[in-house]
């Protein structure tokens, strides 16, 4: 007997069997599923949940020597800075729902130049001649150089009166 008709018969029988098996399995699956089906009930708009999180570590252990080459720790040691409030609402609703949240770990903070206060000048007491030249309107008294601002204000008030 030739090989092709034998193989063709095998494939034909196998394909028909697959069809029957697949349809039968599907029907059985549907019967099985329909037994356990329950009517769905309406759900509330918010649900209560519980969060379990570890307290922040005093000092985090980092095995620096084992870090792979090139991999940088972004924050070392990393101590979680976020402290959930008593009743936080996690999933935002409404218009603000799609607002991006920034990570305290990775979000790049805009650079703000450090505000450095100029050293205050001595109001009373003897001042060096070099510092006196910086300010034009200083009054020299027995107590040293004194600002004239207060006096000017007082004089003005008197004049107005």
């Amino acid at each position, binding site marked *: 007997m030739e090989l*092709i008709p034998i193989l*063709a018969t095998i*494939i*034909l029988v196998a*394909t*028909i069997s*697959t*069809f029957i098996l*697949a349809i039968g*399995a*599907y029907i*059985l*699956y549907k019967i*099985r*599923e329909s037994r356990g*089906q*329950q*009517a*769905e*009930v*309406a*759900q509330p*708009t*918010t*649900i*209560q*949940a*519980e*969060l*379990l*999180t*570890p*307290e922040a570590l005093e000092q*985090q*252990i980092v095995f620096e020597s*084992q870090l*792979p080459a*090139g*991999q*940088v720790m*972004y924050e070392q040691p*990393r101590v*979680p800075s*976020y402290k959930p409030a*008593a*009743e*936080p*609402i*996690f*999933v*935002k609703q409404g218009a603000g*729902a799609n*607002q*991006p*949240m920034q*990570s*305290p*770990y*990775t*979000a790049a903070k805009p650079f703000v130049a450090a505000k450095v206060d100029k050293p205050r000048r001595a109001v009373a007491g003897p001042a060096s001649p070099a510092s006196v030249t910086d300010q034009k309107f200083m009054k020299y008294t027995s107590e040293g150089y004194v600002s004239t601002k207060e006096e000017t204000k007082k004089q003005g008030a008197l004049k107005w009166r």
Partner: protein
Amino acid sequence: MAEKQNIRKTKLTLANTKATKVDTGEKKKKIFRRMITSGSISLLMILIIIFTLPHTVLSLNSLIEFATLVSLFIFLIVLLFRYFLLLILAYLYINNYTFKQKNGFYPFVSIIVPVYNEAKVITQSIKSLLKLDYSNYEIIVVNDGSSDNTYDVAKELVGFQKGRYTDIKVSLINKPNGGKAKALNAGISYSKAEIVLCMDGDSELSEDCIKVAVRHFSDPAIGAVAGNVKVLNRKKFFTDLQALEYIEGLNFARAAQSFVKLVNIIPGPIGIFRRKAVEDAGYYSSDTFAEDADITLKILANGWKIYYEPLAISYTEAPEKLHQLLKQRYRWTRGIIQAIRKHKKLLVNPTVNFGITFVLWGMFYEALIWPIMNIFSNLFFIFAALVYGFSSLILFWWAGLALLDLATALYCIAVEKEEVRLIPYAIIYRMFFILTIDICKAMSTVEEFLGIEMTWGKLERVGALPANT
């Protein structure tokens, strides 16, 4: 696992939008109306053929033969075109991937692990996560109202656990049952990381998974990275077939799609997302049964790109019984159709976002057209063999497809450095395994269009996660 640590308990209020509608009699009326409409149209078309046929040169038999041959020819052309297009794109992707390695981006990552009745596997799953080759991450377990002792098991894992390079924070959110989408949303909302990794509670990640996946986010256009899902419980006939399907059917297509950075489904067992992309998409939705397909389409619709990382591997348990497999595929098919229907405006309007239109048509073809074509071609060959005695036709058809599958399996297994013993399964893969799946897909499609109610199914886990994979 570690010494007792101070655990803080906090009450949360989570949004529970998209509440399921309560079924009313309206649904049945709708199904009845659809059946009447489609039945009337079919009857009208048959009558037109019967009345007009005598006026043509064709007889009824020749019409059937002619129509069948034309359909088969079109089917063959589409099949070959699809195969070679995927093959070329997948090859270009692998070339691109191999020669354009990007390293040096290590952002903080939150791993979200939604669990529902996973007491058997959760400890092993978290232990494997602590061994990841990455230093900058945390683990958030979301217990979705499990009815077993998952909560107690997961509670023991909360704390700063010793990771590979540093202590890893493990948190637990315990919420009432609401589905995977809501569980993932709760985890993502709690996380403060810019990159989130969503996975399944029963899956296990490869050690360098995060490291290889997050490097693609250095490109600001990338909104998400799809990982590579592999079958964990192999060495069984049924699961081996699925292992081949994951490599040849799913990952191969994903690699091809990744060449144009338009991956159509980020798999549930491993998806890495940019937080901004998830927020733009409005988080996971609960209105479809394939939340992973839905969020992928929403991310693509917002203009983000999605890449595939073959080295970010997630090992997952595949169904071991036929009814479990059918349950899974039934849910996938209906979920994908629901997701496509949600974006139907983009399906017919390519001017808004051509990429998403292309993706949607691809999904439409895979989910609806392909299964029906495959079933009808097989039915035709059975008919030709039984009625006309052309039994050799079915053999040649099967041999052609098997040869094509063998070549593809060989290529995919070589690329992924997978088990060579899976290659022979390609001989029976198309004709028997895929035929069974396609019949299930076709039935599910009919049910979806008729609007028949369905529920989420939970796959029974055997707890097959080994200590080391």
